């Protein structure tokens, strides 16, 4: 055991620049053994840059990194791993068709998918309570199970420091609990854990220290156990974060989205079929669909937007008109607007400017010009959106890929709001978005419903569902639990519904 006074990792004056942008500015920070240390900050605060430097993915321009008291130069992740630093990324890199064991072997230098590896996996799983079935193909696994593979893969390297990037964003509350138990066990064995999360409640729940970044600098450290979520959020954004203001009382109006007995076959391999889904969203309300990723959310979104899915039975009406076989353009002309989950490559063309990206969802209903795109009008419209939704990025009209997640999401939501839709369907409105942007987006959605639009929000974030919705439905295993008024239910009840009907694909509660 090393001297507990010497931190597992320490950086002094760590600075990383990208052109004129200083992503990390003289960062001093350390993680001790046995500590679960939260790294907090808005998107763009420099969290990912910092952990990439710590994991050898980026080379800092100035400053030093010490691992257990010795100055090191990390040229690549392999070197970081050799020094006992492991990382679990937000997005999994697993092969769907291969088994768990094969995936672990592929991600582990010098390992083969044999009995010896299986035994090591079994031992690691036992010690840290990871519960992994090595023979199952990955495509049969839930997100929580997939994440456990990634964690196991990381633990096989025997790391002293484990970096987790937004690890709970794809987990049910119950799955998150079991992750926390594993993390606590790891920490009690002397490992240090660096935990990046936007969910302040869970940071308070499991972290014993927190470093807060803002604008590339360390603006404070805190003991999350004695702070409130609100005080942590204030540290992150530098000013008070407002709660979403409930709209003034207003009446619900006509049904703008009606889904009747909808049965849909997915058009991608391993997609989730939808069976017999019923749902109505009226003018003036926000309906949230809660559920864990992979339970039919993307399929539901694409059948509502007309982008995909093979409708076997049932129908969809928008503003009273049957649109089951209509294109997304026809639906937009009826007043519908859509915000897909993936910001780059689905909601936007990454290498195009924001003004060019307006064309994607505007060309059916707004005057953008056909023979010659009206670039001047598009540029003006983008400025309006940038001002109204506080979109920050380099230059007047940056390319989509140049924006941080939160700013891009504000732009995408703003682009649809500018069309003054009667029906807005949003898939994961604040996924990977910083606290302030998330608050603004949520407020926008609530305000839109108050102005008489119907808003449907598909979200994995239960807090969000409870914060903004009038009714909550749960999608699980491709089936819809009918919506219930939000104030008549609670997290536990919804969480229980989320874990049912997994049809052998996940862990039944």
């Amino acid at each position, binding site marked *: 055991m090393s001297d507990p006074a010497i931190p597992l990792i320490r950086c002094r004056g760590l600075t990383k620049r*990208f*052109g004129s942008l200083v992503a990390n500015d003289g960062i001093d920070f350390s993680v001790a053994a046995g500590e679960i240390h939260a790294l907090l900050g808005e998107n763009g605060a420099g969290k990912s840059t910092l952990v990439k430097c710590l994991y050898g993915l980026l080379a800092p321009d100035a400053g030093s990194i010490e691992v257990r008291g010795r100055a090191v130069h990390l040229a690549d992740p392999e070197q970081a791993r050799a020094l006992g630093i492991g990382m679990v990324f937000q997005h999994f890199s697993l092969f769907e068709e291969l088994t768990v064991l094969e995936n672990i072997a592929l991600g582990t230098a010098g390992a083969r998918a044999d009995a010896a590896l299986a035994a090591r996996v079994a031992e690691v799983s036992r010690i840290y309570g990871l519960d992994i079935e090595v023979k199952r193909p990955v495509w049969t696994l839930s997100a929580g199970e997939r994440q456990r593979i990634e964690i196991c893969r990381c633990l096989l390297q025997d790391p002293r420091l484990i970096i987790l990037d937004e690890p709970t964003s794809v987990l049910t509350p119950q799955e998150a609990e079991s992750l926390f138990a594993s993390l606590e066990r790891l920490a009690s064995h002397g490992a240090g854990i660096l935990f990046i999360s936007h969910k302040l409640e869970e940071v308070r729940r499991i972290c014993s220290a927190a470093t807060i970044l803002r604008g590339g600098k360390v603006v404070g450290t805190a003991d999350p156990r004695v702070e409130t979520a609100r005080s942590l959020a204030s540290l992150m954004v530098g000013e008070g974060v407002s709660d979403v203001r409930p709209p003034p009382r207003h009446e619900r109006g006509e049904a703008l989205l009606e889904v009747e007995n909808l049965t849909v076959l997915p058009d991608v391999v391993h997609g989730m079929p939808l069976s017999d889904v019923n749902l109505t969203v009226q003018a003036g309300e926000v309906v949230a669909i809660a559920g864990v990723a992979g339970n039919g959310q993307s399929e539901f979104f694409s059948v509502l*937007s*007309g*982008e*995909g899915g093979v409708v076997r039975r049932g129908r969809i009406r928008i503003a009273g008109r049957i649109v089951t076989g209509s*294109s*997304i*353009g026809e639906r*937009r002309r009826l007043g519908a607007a*859509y915000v*897909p989950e*993936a910001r780059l*490559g*689905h*909601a*936007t*063309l*990454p*290498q*195009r400017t924001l003004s*060019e990206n307006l*064309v*994607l*969802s505007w*060309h*059916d209903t707004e005057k*953008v*010009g*056909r*023979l*010659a*795109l009206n*670039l001047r009008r598009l540029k003006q419209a983008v400025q309006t959106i940038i001002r109204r939704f506080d979109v920050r990025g380099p230059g007047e009209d940056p390319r989509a890929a140049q924006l941080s997640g939160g700013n891009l999401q504000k732009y995408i939501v703003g682009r649809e709001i500018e069309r003054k839709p009667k029906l807005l369907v949003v898939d994961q409105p604040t996924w990977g978005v910083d606290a302030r942007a998330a608050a603004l987006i949520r407020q926008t959605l609530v305000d839109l419903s108050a102005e008489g639009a119907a808003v449907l929000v598909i979200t994995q974030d239960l807090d969000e569902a409870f914060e903004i919705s009038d009714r909550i439905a749960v999608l699980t295993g491709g089936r819809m639990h009918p919506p219930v008024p939000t104030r008549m239910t609670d997290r536990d009840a919804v969480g229980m519904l989320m874990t049912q009907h997994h049809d052998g694909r996940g862990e039944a509660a």
Partner: protein
Amino acid sequence: MALALAPRRSVSRLRQVLTPLVAFLVALIVAGSVLAAMGKSLKIAAEVYIVEPLTSSWGVQEVILKATPLTLIAIGLIFAIRANRWNIGAEGQYVIGGMAGGAVAIATHGMGAPWILPAMLAAGVLAGVAYGALPALLRNRFGISEILSSLMLVYVAELLLDYLVRGPWRDPKAYNFPKSVNFDAAATLGPIAEGLKLHWGVVLALVVVVVAALVLARSLFGFAVSATGEAPRAANFAGFNDRRLTMQVFAISGGLAGLAGVIEVSANIGQLQPSIGQGYGFTAIIVAFLGRLNPMGALVAALALSMLIIGSETAQVMLKLPFDMTRAFMGLLLLCVLAGEALTRFRLVRT
């Protein structure tokens, strides 16, 4: 020690501009070294490849004439490639276009009416459109790879032409040579001015360059084409109809290849014969990429490759070089430009 490519974080405008020039220079140096190693005179090589095509009136006109079909076909291919659709069969669409235009010329032989030439051009374009639509149809309807079907249709077109000029369309007075009758003046695309070899097809090609550049850069359709290639999911989200777009880009590339075919047959060849192809449809793929999928770029690239082809023809005589060296040099040029492009976006690192 091994080398690996790592992405650059930013690429300067200057680097983007300089890259093709440097690539061209590198290709020139390598080609020169090869020639020197073969014991050829570099002075004569410079004369035939560079000086003569650029200085003599004959050379300049030849370069422009050869660049015309290359430009037309490449412009069409740019639409397809930008949409990530692979039309490898422009050669076939070119042949079919020439054949259809030729059919009009043969059928109207001796009539000498003013509508013949426009009818030929229209027939060439329409035939190219129809022939180009086949791979698109097969892809949309049956999911057949357009790469394979478009390529294989080249052979169908060539063999069909071969059959026609040996059979039904053969000129009875041609002593059994496989060729059609010589076209009338009314079926011949004439020179722009007396004493020039440059014909009206050159002007047409320039118009196509400008229109295509505008359509690609400014119109909603051009945006849809590029969006489909850049991010198909985003294009689907926009509601751009993937199948219709596939038909459209194949129709455009087929139509322009057909136009190139009929222009070549009418203005330069003056009859139908088995070998109207000359590989323009394949060389145009290189032109499209050398021109970085940009119509103006394609025009420049077509002129450069045309110069290379003309130079090689002279070099056969002057330097006793096999004509296959042309292909090797074209490949070398493409390789250098693509490598240059890769190196603007990535840098070499030792691992």
